[in-house]
């Protein structure tokens, strides 16, 4: 397997979406190709860092304000529909 072929399968590999044979071929490639091992490992870290980053968390006060506004508008809409 060439490095470019490895790279094409990288997403499927990281997502566990490969058949056993292809997975074994990729892991064989990883065992001797340091560059692909590094790319694979750091791509996995990239995903994990973003997954754990809590970049845009909704603050509690804003959250309850937004929810109240949504619920009030839903109730208003419900009343309008019922009176029609």
């Amino acid at each position, binding site marked *: 397997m060439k*490095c470019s072929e490895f790279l*094409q399968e990288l*997403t499927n590999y990281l997502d566990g979406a490969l058949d056993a044979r292809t997975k074994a071929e990729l892991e064989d490639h990883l065992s001797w190709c340091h560059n692909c091992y*590094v790319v694979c490992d*750091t*791509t996995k870290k990239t995903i994990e860092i973003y997954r754990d980053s809590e*970049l845009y*968390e909704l603050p509690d006060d804003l959250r309850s304000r937004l929810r109240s506004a*949504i619920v009030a508008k839903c109730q208003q809409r419900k009343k309008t529909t019922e009176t029609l």
Partner: protein
Amino acid sequence: MSTIQPKVDEPVSEEMQLVHAAQGGDVGSFEELVKRYDRNVFRIAQHITQNREDAEDVVQDAFLKAYGNLAQFQGQSKFYTWLVRIAVNEALMKLRRRRPERMVSLDEDVKTEEDSLPREIADWSPNPEQQYNQAELKEILTKTIQGLPPSFRTVFVLRDVEGLSTEETADALGLSIPAVKSRLLRARLQLRERLGRYFQKRESGDGPK
């Protein structure tokens, strides 16, 4: 090397009971659905719009649109996937309004100069995120993901941050599965390449150059 595990799904049947009750006019049940997904919708919206006020508007508009169209939801997909589709559309509309000079579309298959093989192969420090304090790390991660084209950023956020499956992401974005996979690969590789500037092993203890 172990693979990335998706986030665990919420039980669907209980959720469908809430959806049915909301379809029957029970606003309280709809509020439960809002509580369940408002954080997710906010994160997705802010990632796409890159603007806090727009993201707040998207949360309201997406849930109100979902409420107004609940009768159309027949349960062919998960409620969350359906809601994400509405939220992504609302967020893209905001982005287009804010940047009318730039065409913003999920269909465009952007070719970038970083699409070739990775250029930077240097390994990272063992715990790269610990090189920075929390505020610095957030700034690095925000700046890095904002540099991706919207179509890549959206796929990466839905798949890797929110934990939707490839099929759910394709469904939510109206893309084919190969298109999702192609964008996801390129988004992951571009983010990896760009984060490498901050996280790679250094001989001295200096910060990024």
